[in-house]
């Protein structure tokens, strides 16, 4: 069919399959990774057009420099006290994770997922919201709840599926729900919440409300179709929503190259929809706060959606069912150049002269005790395998608002 080129001269094609740079046994080395200097990225007005800030989708917005100083146009938004609260929030997430990981190992529940190394993202983001706003989180945003006043013990009750579980033992551990605290019921199905958040935001706009939504997704899950649905709807209707991608570089055993083909950035996907896209150092609490606040303000002012890619690293296993040493070098998280979010924020406060190592140790211990006490309380309500649980008959409740006849019959037959 081609008028000028014979098929015979063509060379054989071959499939390119992206591979991560390092596998177990390799020595990870990120010295080539382009890490822009803190303070270098400009801070645009919130009503900017996406096309005017394309570069922000390809850089990494950073605030804290190596010396722990906050620099550049994104710095200076939080008071010392607010920053200390942020540090404590992250410590709380870390202590909570450690305890619950252990509880799962001890057989007190079936499953757990930690956010180790990513704590800054959810904790800082939550502080940019107002009461009534709604997060549509994934399973790795416990920091959103843990930096509100949601009772830690209720989170544990849920994890234990015990008699006080607010979700009646119906959900897998960590699949919390709290409308009150702006935390949408977590789904086990990836990405579905990303478009739901957009829909919720559209509803707020239709009703002339002032509330905004925040959708959350992982790097691997951006490949899911509902990521696309969300961008299409958010851009079309300029929904008041912040679209957060947590790029922790891994999706179970699969590195980020499988979701983005080693080219472009996740953030840059927003540009094809005219959605402003910003890439931020996810291990820099101050940068996450500043960028998130920008996007939240933008949404609330009626300028529409923002896509944020939070660049971080998943330090722990994917879940308690996973052992990452099978597919990546153990040393990789240490080698990763953006460091630990808790250490970095601590150093910032110390550099500022408003915090000491001793205060830090004290705070950590206090929080660990808090968490341990909550755990004791929760375990009084039972654990997964030893019970007690909600009554078995409650299994039939709330499938519908009113129980239809066929379910009433089934419950009767079950004799429970």
């Amino acid at each position, binding site marked *: 069919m081609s008028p000028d080129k014979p098929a015979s001269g063509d060379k054989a094609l071959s499939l390119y399959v992206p591979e991560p740079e390092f596998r177990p046994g390799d020595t990870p080395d990120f010295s080539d990774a382009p890490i822009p200097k803190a303070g270098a990225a400009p801070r645009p007005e919130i009503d900017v057009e996406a096309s005017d800030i394309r570069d922000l989708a390809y850089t990494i917005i950073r605030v804290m420099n190596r010396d722990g100083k906050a620099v550049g146009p994104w710095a200076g938004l939080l008071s010392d006290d607010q920053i200390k609260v942020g540090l404590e929030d992250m410590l709380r997430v870390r202590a909570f994770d450690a305890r619950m990981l252990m509880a799962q190992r001890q057989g007190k529940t079936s499953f757990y997922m930690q956010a180790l190394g990513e704590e800054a993202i959810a904790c800082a983001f939550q502080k940019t919201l107002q009461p009534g706003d709604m997060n549509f989180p994934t399973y790795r945003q416990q920091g959103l709840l843990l930096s509100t006043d949601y009772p830690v013990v209720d989170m544990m009750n849920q994890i234990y599926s015990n008699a006080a579980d607010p979700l009646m033992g119906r959900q897998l551990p960590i699949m919390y729900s709290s*409308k009150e605290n702006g935390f949408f019921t977590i789904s086990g199905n990836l990405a*579905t919440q990303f*478009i*739901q958040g957009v829909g919720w935001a559209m509803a707020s706009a239709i009703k002339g409300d002032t509330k905004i939504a925040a959708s959350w997704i992982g790097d691997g899950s951006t490949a899911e179709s*509902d990521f*696309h649905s969300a961008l299409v709807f958010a851009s079309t209707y300029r929904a008041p929503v912040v679209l957060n991608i947590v790029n922790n570089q891994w999706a179970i055993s699969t590195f980020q190259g499988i979701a983005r083909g080693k080219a472009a950035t996740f953030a840059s996907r927003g540009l094809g929809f005219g959605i402003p896209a910003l890439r931020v150092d996810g291990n820099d609490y101050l940068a996450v706060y500043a960028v998130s606040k920008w996007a939240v303000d933008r949404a609330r002012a009626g300028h529409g959606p923002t896509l944020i890619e939070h660049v971080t690293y998943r330090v722990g296993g994917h879940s308690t069912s996973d052992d990452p040493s099978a597919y990546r070098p153990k040393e990789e998280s240490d080698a990763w150049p953006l460091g630990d979010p808790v250490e970095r924020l601590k150093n910032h406060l110390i550099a500022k002269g408003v915090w000491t190592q001793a205060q830090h140790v004290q705070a950590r211990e206090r929080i660990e005790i808090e968490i341990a006490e909550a755990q004791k309380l929760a375990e009084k309500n039972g654990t997964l395998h030893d019970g007690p649980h909600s009554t078995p008959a409650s299994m039939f409740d709330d499938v519908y608002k009113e129980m239809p006849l066929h379910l009433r019959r089934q419950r009767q037959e079950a004799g429970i």
Partner: protein
Amino acid sequence: MARMTMIQAIRSAMENTMERDDNVVVFGEDVGFFGGVFRCTQGLQEKFGPQRCFDSPINESGIIGAAVGMATYGMRPCVEIQFADYVYPGYDQIASEASRIRYRSNNDFTVPMVVRMPTGGGIFGGQTHSQSPEALFAHISGIKTVIPSNPYDAKGLLIAAIEDDDPVMFLEPKRLYNGPFDGHHERPVTPWSKHELGEVSDEHYTVPLGKAAIRREGAEVTILAYGTMVYVAEAATQETGIDAEIIDLRTILPLDLETIEASVAKTGRCVIVHEATKTCGFGAELMAVVMEACFYHLQAPVIRVTGYDTPYPHAHEWEYFPGPKRVGDALKKVMEAA
């Protein structure tokens, strides 16, 4: 009171609910300015403005996913999927999300949402404008599935669905939009204006979800049908002279078990009719219900008359479609048996 087509009745249901409750919004492909490819939403954008009735991108998962989000905010979205054949890209949002949000969040979030979709064949629409996917909804716990057969019910059921606090799949037999169709494609179509169930009030009223209607009382055999098949059943009954009791299920989930059981207990015979493919179609569940509750009353094996287990063919529409001849044969067979 006025005579309405099923399209007008459906539109009237949306109009009434939109008037009463500004949480009701309508969107979907081509439903805004144009008013929908079947014109069910015509005039709604003009009346309620583009924030209450608008065109959506062509993305069924997005339509349903956004509606789920809106519903959890507290609105009552009533969205249109252009043809039921195109609901599959949105199936995950139905089966994994809408259906389970109340349960998994222990009532913290709920999804009062309606997904309308034209369904069924008989219009030479070929494989992808003719499907009847109701069984795929009936298998999912946490959603309701409604299939009206006439303008009066369509309006009352749709209002009930929009006002219901759980997600409802609302399947509209497109072959009935303009008149009852009994499968006699060679005859001229009767318009709804000539049918008593075309008599529809402009006012708000509901037909309860989960209640079947007995379209014809009869003593010899029970026909379980819904949508277009109700008229095919009527034609077959008339043509065979068999005294069938015709039950129009209207809601297939929750199913009106009591009405079904009482009727089959009375007649001792049963024929099940639907357009969808046979294997694992909703007729299988109806078989099971009858087996479980009426076994000792049965005088003959129950018969299913359904679409065949093939994709819906274009040229052979009338060989495929379960028409009055096939239903009549089943009636005769079930009467002859035992």
